[in-house]
């Protein structure tokens, strides 16, 4: 090969990198065999407490993933393909993404979905930026029930931009109508809501959606897709942009990613959407096929005028969610949602009998809810770990005034025995703490 190139040594190919460019150091370990690397990472995996019984949610849930889901996405044809720039040899990915978009629309009741964004938080940020671009306004009204993780992230992103934020704390768990309505004005680009909210409360936002629209404000709602098996879809109450974290649709928790950000919009906003969009068309012989479409919005064409800088999204995660949604289907998703609700309601009932625990009853909930404890929630959760439970998420992490509060999530994977075991352990822990106080 060297003689074809016309050089005598590989180093001749690197002459543009001159001696003074050489690395000051390149002190890396020696290579290892596959077996050795596997053993090393197995060792690291063992140092994680992944065997705790999970009652932690916070937007990321421990749902069962049918074996078919990873079996399909681990096929090399999906796994080792690039972005479908050449549609003739990428119809597999393209059609799967079209089906993904259609499923997301089916679930949310919206007109159009893009082919995915990184995760639920970045999807919400993109939605907000889209609303600002569309309305030409620069003020955002954000419900305090929106995930505090998302809110912190959005604030980081917009630190350098002139965007004014109004955050409205919920009242009795649900969105505070009066204060939100006062906050909406002619400079407001968007009102951002979440359903169920971070405390687990379900709301029917129809009334404030209408108010926002009267003020020319776009409504963004972040949703939990499993809950949509049962809850009224955002499309029905007039939401303009729906986003959400799609991890629950067949993706492992995997310590924070890769996840799936989804976004769906009303028809009038399709061309304002960021990210890839797959559309149907025909080939030269009139056969149905799929292509990336509306690419004029994107960075590789529009460069500095693009609707977003996003390039790679999470196509494989979207395919994974499509397989999951296809397996569960019309009935399965409803049954799954009902099962989650039933388990959570059972747990609430059991908790009510525990002294020192108050289940907040201000609003209905789905599979996650808030409890007030008689003592510091962080301490309770810490002690519950010794009993094998990740018992809940301490709200003081993001809400300093809520020291004794935690949220508890109950998915279909939690059995009655586990819930009963939790209650038993919690009674012991609370008794211990009462003694020590």
């Amino acid at each position, binding site marked *: 090969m060297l003689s074809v190139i016309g050089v005598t040594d590989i180093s001749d190919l690197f002459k543009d990198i001159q001696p003074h460019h050489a*690395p000051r150091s390149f002190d890396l370990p020696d290579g290892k065999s596959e077996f050795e690397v596997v053993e090393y990472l197995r060792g690291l995996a063992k140092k994680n407490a*992944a065997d705790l019984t999970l009652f932690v949610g916070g937007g990321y849930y421990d749902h069962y993933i049918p074996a078919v889901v990873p079996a399909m996405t681990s096929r090399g*044809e999906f796994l080792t393909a690039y972005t479908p720039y050449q549609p003739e040899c990428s119809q597999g990915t393209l*059609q799967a993404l079209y089906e993904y*978009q259609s499923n997301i629309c089916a679930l949310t009741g919206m007109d159009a979905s893009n082919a995915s964004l990184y995760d639920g938080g970045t999807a919400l940020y993109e939605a907000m930026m889209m609303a600002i671009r569309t309305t030409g306004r620069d003020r955002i009204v954000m419900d305090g029930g929106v995930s505090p993780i998302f809110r912190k992230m959005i604030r980081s992103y917009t630190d350098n931009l002139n965007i004014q934020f109004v955050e409205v704390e919920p009242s009795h768990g649900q969105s505070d109508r009066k204060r939100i309505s006062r906050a909406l004005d002619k400079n407001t680009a968007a009102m951002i809501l979440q359903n169920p909210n971070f405390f687990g409360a379900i709301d029917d936002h129809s009334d404030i959606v209408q108010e926002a629209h009267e003020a020319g404000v776009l409504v963004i709602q972040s949703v939990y897709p499993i809950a949509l098996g049962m809850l*009224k879809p955002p499309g029905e109450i007039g939401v303009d942009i729906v986003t959400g974290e799609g991890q629950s649709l067949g993706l492992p928790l995997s310590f924070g990613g890769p996840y799936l950000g989804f976004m769906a919009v009303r028809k009038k906003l399709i061309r304002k959407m960021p990210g890839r969009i797959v559309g149907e068309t025909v080939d030269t012989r009139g056969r149905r096929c799929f292509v990336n479409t509306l690419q004029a919005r994107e960075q590789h064409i529009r460069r500095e005028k693009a609707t977003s800088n996003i390039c*790679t999204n999470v196509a494989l995660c979207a395919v994974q969610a499509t397989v999951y949604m296809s397996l569960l289907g019309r009935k399965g998703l409803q049954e799954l949602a009902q099962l989650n609700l039933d388990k959570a309601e059972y747990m609430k009932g059991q908790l009510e009998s525990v002294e020192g625990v108050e289940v907040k009853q201000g609003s209905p909930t789905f599979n996650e809810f808030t409890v007030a404890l008689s003592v510091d929630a962080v301490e309770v959760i810490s002690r519950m770990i010794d009993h094998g439970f990740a018992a809940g998420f301490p709200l003081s992490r993001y809400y300093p005034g809520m020291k004794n509060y935690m949220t508890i999530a109950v998915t279909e994977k939690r059995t009655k025995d586990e819930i009963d075991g939790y209650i038993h352990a919690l009674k012991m822990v609370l008794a211990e703490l009462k003694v020590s106080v």
Partner: protein
Amino acid sequence: MDLIFEKSRSGRKGYSLPGTDVPQSSEMDQRYRRTVEAPLPEITELDVVRHFTQLSRRNFSVDGNIYPLGSCTMKYNPRFTEMLAGLAGFAQLHPLLPQLGKGYELVQGALQLLYEMESLLCEITGFSAMTLQPLAGAHGELTGVMMMAAYHKARGHQKRFIIVPDSAHGTNPASAVIAGYETVMVPSASQGILDMKAIKAVLNDQVAGLMLTCPNTVGIFNSDIDKIAKMVHEVDGLMYYDGANLNAILGKCRPGDLGFDVMHMNLHKTFSTPHGGGGPGSGPVGVSEKLLPFLPISRVVKEANGQYRLNYDYPDSIGYMASFYGNFGVLLKAFAYILLLGRQGLADVSDHAVLNANYVMARLKKHFHLAYDRICMHECVFSAVKQAAHGVHAVDIAKFLIDQGIHPMTIYFPLIVREAMMIEPTETESKESLDRFIDAMIQASDLSLSHPDVLKECPQIMPITRPDEVKAARDLNVNFFAAEQRAAGPVA
């Protein structure tokens, strides 16, 4: 091929849910409930498996095809990393665990992995510190530019511009604008390299920094790079390295040593995490000492007692770029890949990637116009101008390759080369497969003279022929259900 919705039959199911062991709860208030079922498909498990298996067969992939897609680095993805990502100790780990009381104790293995990964990437790139938080390359770019902005803000600078070469990836200007800057484009000199004069012409106190890909997108390493860095630093501008692809420089040079202040890298390229048909990616960002205080939070730290924890206490940090600690499942695959290769293995990557690219270039030179006739790095850029004279364009050559079972190279990028064909063979292709690709290219060139019409009709043997992209955008159909409603008649 039918859509999954067209295979749906009422009453079929592809799932089994655990029987309920708790009483059914009382009905939820109707005003919160959906009244119409979501029209997801109803289909058996076997039919789901068949559907997605058949779909997968309609894809080219690295596993099945030569894939010399320039700038995308489609090297072989070792399979053991998939198995590792699936280990329960990683896959079932909830990201909020470290935020519970005693939480760090629960995730020591994961934090150790992240910590060691940061160290490895710092050593490979020559930077002082690294954030693993960005979820893809473009996300990393935005993170990098935001840190640049934070740096200038902290120093009381009023800077407005970021310089971007015309050969840059489209994400560069897009990221700069989203972070609040205006971009100034500078043209490449005749050899495809950014020239010092052009930079000097636009350089002033208002310049926040320069974004550079090096080797650039035409596959050339800029020998003046350290001088350029010096010039930009003189106006207290920052040097941004678009390290999407490090495949040419592993063990040869390190951006941190060359005077760069910040860089992102796309792990799916150099460090071989599968691209998945368009993600998930991972876009770690390295910084020099100057930008250290501005790194996103949280950061993984190692205590004197050997314990790992997350530190959020950096008052100058730009804040949260992602909800958690990055795409952990992708990071761990890249980590395993780096451990497998080690120091020598990584250096060999660049040797072989550059050798392969130059071999392809040398053999195709006679047949295609070479945009810049000189030794290239990990990729080379040809132009189809000679063929275009006979009515055959880069796209026609690409479509011919598809019929040969070869994924085409990147076409029409970089924008500065007319009829561009950007070829990146990567280090994992054998000489035999390179020859097969080269022979197919030569055949395409020959056909462009003898039978140009044949190329225009390609591909012929794929599941579809060329799609009508104009129709796709004009008669927009991105959702089966909306299309179905339209077909059913006008909506009142």
